């Protein structure tokens, strides 16, 4: 029975789907245009620092209205022309190119950039599935960060508050914090993010959303602004597992414009009662370095008791206890940052102030142009157009690729990456685990927005649990299980599946969600 008391745009995606399709005579029927108006009105209160969550950088009101009118017509006519996500408002992290709509990557560098094409996933969601992008979400600049505070457009604010410090603003996590906050604040039922080393999973955990990062290669990266190409994947935020699945299933498919996009997928899901769950955390001898880990484990174990008759196994106590993935010093965090920064230094070389993007003012081709060489013009444009964290990463990425360091750092990181992939293969193939469960972040919950780690490499530790499966390219899902008794903030877990086992991941997540909500 649909909940008629909720404002239309706060409904779940599944409820929207159902109510958009009701007969015209039915009082509960939603009209796509009315839904869009309410969504846009809500979103307008969240653009710019100091406004709501600051989760949006740009809104495409005219475009969204036009599409809503066409969807409304299709829905009224009914029949085959009605597409799966017809009339559903979505928001996109500002890493996804949208034809004719400004796309900034949260950077001054792209403040005026209007792409002549859309990302493949946006094409699939809008043209094939009928969803409507209402605008572009705020984020860490070029997706580099874990707090969504490095954006040229100001920090994102988490819509949730800590019960014990209710006047304190919290970080929405990062880098896709705007997408997470837009979904958590109920502006849109789902939004796209990008996940290189945890940028969907961690903000999802901090805002109480479901966040899914699929297998590397499932979704095309065409039109997604590159950070670290061997790790970047599109992902989805939603307020329930079903809603997230509905969006993800409409945005994958082979695309020849991305050579890493796969054309053939084999899945082999098991029924829930056959699924073997493994809890994967640093071994007990390392727990003193992870102050929140024991309470996380205790809570997980007590709550999972009786879940669908399954008993999750702590991998540290199993035959697989030798796995290097239990060792926090396995090199995965280092390997991740070496590879990501190296790839970033190469990918971001395209921003030269010539073809698009910011150009340093004194060389705008006018009065002072003659005072700078081409080389200087490019170097100053990059120095002024990029923010500090992006520049740090370009410099460090260039360092690991430079002669004298390449073999011992970059190539060594690629070797560690192979060992990590092989460790996961052992857990899935030899030890027969189907889904691995771990924390999402060492802190477990959102930190205060005022905590600024932007000058401190300590911020990189935030990605401790999310980078190993990113290096292996495995599908992962961040799932809020319940609220913390004291803070009222979400208690979340990360589920990791084997390659292309998204169905299995969604199935387990859906049942966990029901179990924890008391529905099972």
């Amino acid at each position, binding site marked *: 029975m649909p909940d008629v008391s909720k404002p239309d745009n706060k409904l779940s995606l599944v409820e929207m789907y159902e109510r958009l399709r009701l007969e015209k005579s039915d009082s509960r029927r939603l009209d796509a245009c009315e839904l869009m108006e309410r969504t846009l009105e809500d979103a307008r209160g969240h653009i710019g620092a100091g406004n709501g969550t600051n989760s949006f950088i740009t809104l495409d009101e005219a475009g969204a209205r036009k599409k809503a009118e066409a969807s409304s017509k299709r829905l009224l006519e009914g029949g085959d022309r009605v597409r799966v996500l017809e009339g559903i408002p979505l928001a996109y992290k500002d890493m996804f190119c949208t034809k004719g709509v400004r796309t900034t990557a949260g950077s001054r560098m792209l403040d005026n950039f209007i792409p002549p094409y859309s990302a493949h996933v946006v094409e699939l969601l809008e043209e094939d599935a009928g969803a409507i992008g209402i605008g572009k979400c705020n984020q860490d600049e070029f997706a580099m960060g874990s707090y969504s505070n490095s954006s040229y457009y100001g920090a994102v604010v988490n819509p949730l508050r800590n019960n014990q410090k209710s006047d304190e603003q919290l970080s929405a996590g990062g880098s896709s914090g705007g997408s997470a906050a837009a979904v958590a604040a109920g502006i849109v039922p789902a939004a796209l993010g990008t996940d290189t080393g945890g940028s969907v999973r961690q903000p999802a955990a901090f805002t109480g959303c479901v966040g899914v990062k699929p297998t590397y290669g499932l979704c095309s990266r065409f039109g997604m602004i590159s950070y670290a190409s061997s790790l970047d994947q599109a992902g989805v935020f939603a307020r329930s597992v079903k809603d997230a699945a509905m969006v993800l299933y409409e945005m994958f498919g082979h695309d020849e414009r991305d050579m890493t996009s796969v054309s053939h997928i084999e899945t082999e899901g098991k029924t829930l009662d056959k699924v073997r769950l493994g809890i994967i955390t640093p071994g007990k001898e390392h727990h003193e370095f992870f102050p929140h880990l024991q309470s996380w484990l205790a809570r997980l174990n007590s709550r999972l008791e009786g879940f669908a008759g399954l008993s999750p196994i702590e991998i540290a106590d199993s035959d697989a206890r030798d796995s290097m993935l239990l060792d926090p010093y396995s090199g995965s965090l280092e390997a991740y940052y070496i590879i990501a920064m190296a790839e970033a230094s190469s990918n971001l*070389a395209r921003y030269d102030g010539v073809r698009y993007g910011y150009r340093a003012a004194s060389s705008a081709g006018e009065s002072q142009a003659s005072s700078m*060489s*081409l080389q200087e013009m*490019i170097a100053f444009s990059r120095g002024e157009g990029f923010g500090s964290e992006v520049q740090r990463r370009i410099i460090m990425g260039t360092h690991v690729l430079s002669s004298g360091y390449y073999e011992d750092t970059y190539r060594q990181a690629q070797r560690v*990456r192979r*060992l990590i992939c092989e460790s996961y293969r052992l857990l899935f193939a030899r030890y027969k685990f189907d889904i691995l469960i771990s924390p999402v972040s060492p802190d477990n919950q959102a930190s205060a927005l005022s905590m600024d780690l932007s000058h401190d490499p300590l911020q990189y530790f935030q990605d401790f649990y999310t980078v190993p499966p990113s290096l292996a390219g495995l599908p992962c899902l961040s799932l809020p299980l319940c609220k913390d008794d004291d803070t009222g903030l979400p208690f979340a877990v990360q589920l990791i599946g084997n390659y292309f086992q998204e169905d299995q991941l969604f199935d387990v997540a859906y049942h966990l969600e029901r179990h924890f909500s008391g529905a099972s």
Partner: protein
Amino acid sequence: MNESSEDKKKLAVASIARLEQLSCLRLSDDLRAEMEGKTFDLVADWFAKIKELDTKEAEPLVNTREFHKDGGEVALRKDEACADAKREELLANAPASEGGFFIVPQVVE
């Protein structure tokens, strides 16, 4: 500051100057000072630790695709020129253009 940390600072200053040149990036004075004073060494030393790990048996991994069940090669497109966007569309985002070309500072004397 003892001698070795002075040497280290000198090394960081030289490294950063070289990296700015390699990456064609002019750091602001504040950011350069921060990196020279702290961040560069912190991150470079952290990265350098990775060489201590035993990886003798492991070849460098570039693409995770070989771990997929069906393995499979990366498919490349045919090497053919194609025009997905019009010239005017592409020039529309350029900071400076004229007569259908990008404008850059003079490079020929």
